[in-house]
């Protein structure tokens, strides 16, 4: 039951892009076509799940016992950068086809703030469901991370579908490009606000 609440809240209610503003750069940057949006979200989901797993263990078994919690930011970003690099090398070796599909997105992910953002949210206990702040255990953290990644994928895929249509329309000159995309995102965020209160 708990897991279902976590999933619904992370995908719809607290959608990572449209209500928490994490990962807005790739959301605007790689959403011109549905196929690239899908590739990007797959790569993000993969890296996010891995990095949360590693940073969770790092936080509770290394940083806190040693009393060096202030190194959190530095160590997390190093872990993420390292993981991205590792995933890239392994994919290239094991599955060239998948590497072809995800390859160009991987380096971009290091500076995607939703990866570091979710890793920090999980360990900093800033997660609330059912009213009270909760400490997530490892299983819940991974479920929450994957659900957040699905939320990212959902938002960016819907958004890219709309943007493909938008290209065919006659938009006023000053609004072309980013501004009209931002307005679409605003309307989508308004639609997602309708989910608030279901959990």
């Amino acid at each position, binding site marked *: 039951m708990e897991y279902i609440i976590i999933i619904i809240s992370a995908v719809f209610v607290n959608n990572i892009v*449209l*209500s*928490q*503003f*994490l*990962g*807005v*750069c790739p959301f*605007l940057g790689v959403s011109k076509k549905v196929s690239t949006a899908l590739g990007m979200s797959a790569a993000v989901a993969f890296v996010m799940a891995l990095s949360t797993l590693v940073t969770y263990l790092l936080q509770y078994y290394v940083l806190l016992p040693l009393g060096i919690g*202030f*190194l*959190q*930011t*530095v160590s997390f*970003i*190093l872990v993420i*950068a390292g993981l991205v690099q590792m995933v890239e090398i392994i994919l290239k070796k094991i599955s060239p086809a998948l590497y072809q599909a995800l390859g160009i997105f991987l380096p971009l992910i*290091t*500076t*995607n*703030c939703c*990866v*570091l*953002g979710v890793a*920090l*949210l999980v360990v*900093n206990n*800033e997660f609330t469901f059912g009213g009270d702040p909760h400490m997530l255990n490892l299983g819940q953290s991974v479920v929450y991370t994957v659900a957040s990644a699905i939320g990212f994928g959902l938002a960016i895929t819907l958004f890219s579908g709309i943007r493909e249509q938008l290209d065919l329309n006659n938009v006023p000159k*000053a*609004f072309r490009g*980013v*501004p*009209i*995309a*931002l*307005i679409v*995102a*605003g*309307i989508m*965020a*308004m639609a*997602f*606000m309708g989910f608030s209160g279901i959990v």
Partner: protein
Amino acid sequence: MGKLKLISEGIIKNNPTFVLILGMCPTLGTTTSAINGMGMGLATLFVLVLSNMSISAIAKLIPEEVRIPSYIVVIAAFVTILQLLLQAFIPSLYETLGIFIPLIVVNCIVLGRAEAYANKNSVIDSAFDGLGVGLGFTIALTILGLVRELLGSGSLFGWKFIQGEGMLAFVLAPGAFIVLAYLIVLFRKVTANKA
């Protein structure tokens, strides 16, 4: 004159928010009021100036292949310093900005300036470049926060002059996207007329 031009370019021609459209997460996430926007802008300015200066100082020592991870570590170090300083001296701001403080590490503006400017130019020039871009970011965030606060809660910098609730949507997520869209359009209009 040269230094002044560096600063004004960061504010107008290369404005990170309105022209380059970089660093969108903190831009949208923290500008619920003018004060918060300004706080976030100044926090980024702090990191930007210091990281620009130190990266330009050590750029020649770093091998080409590992430059990006090295820059990120330098930036992360300054972000940690900022985090500890804010926690000690301005805890209220630290609370409101929350997760967006550590996320300055992955702000594309900071890494972007390191890669595009600081590693090729002198320490002093890099400092001014950081100052200009940081000011451009701060001004943009303050304006965005100002508009959202005015429409959303009828106040300016916390000074309430319109009674009642205001339009809540502008403080929440949708308002952030829509106000930013209109500000970009306005900025394009104004700068296009000038040129």
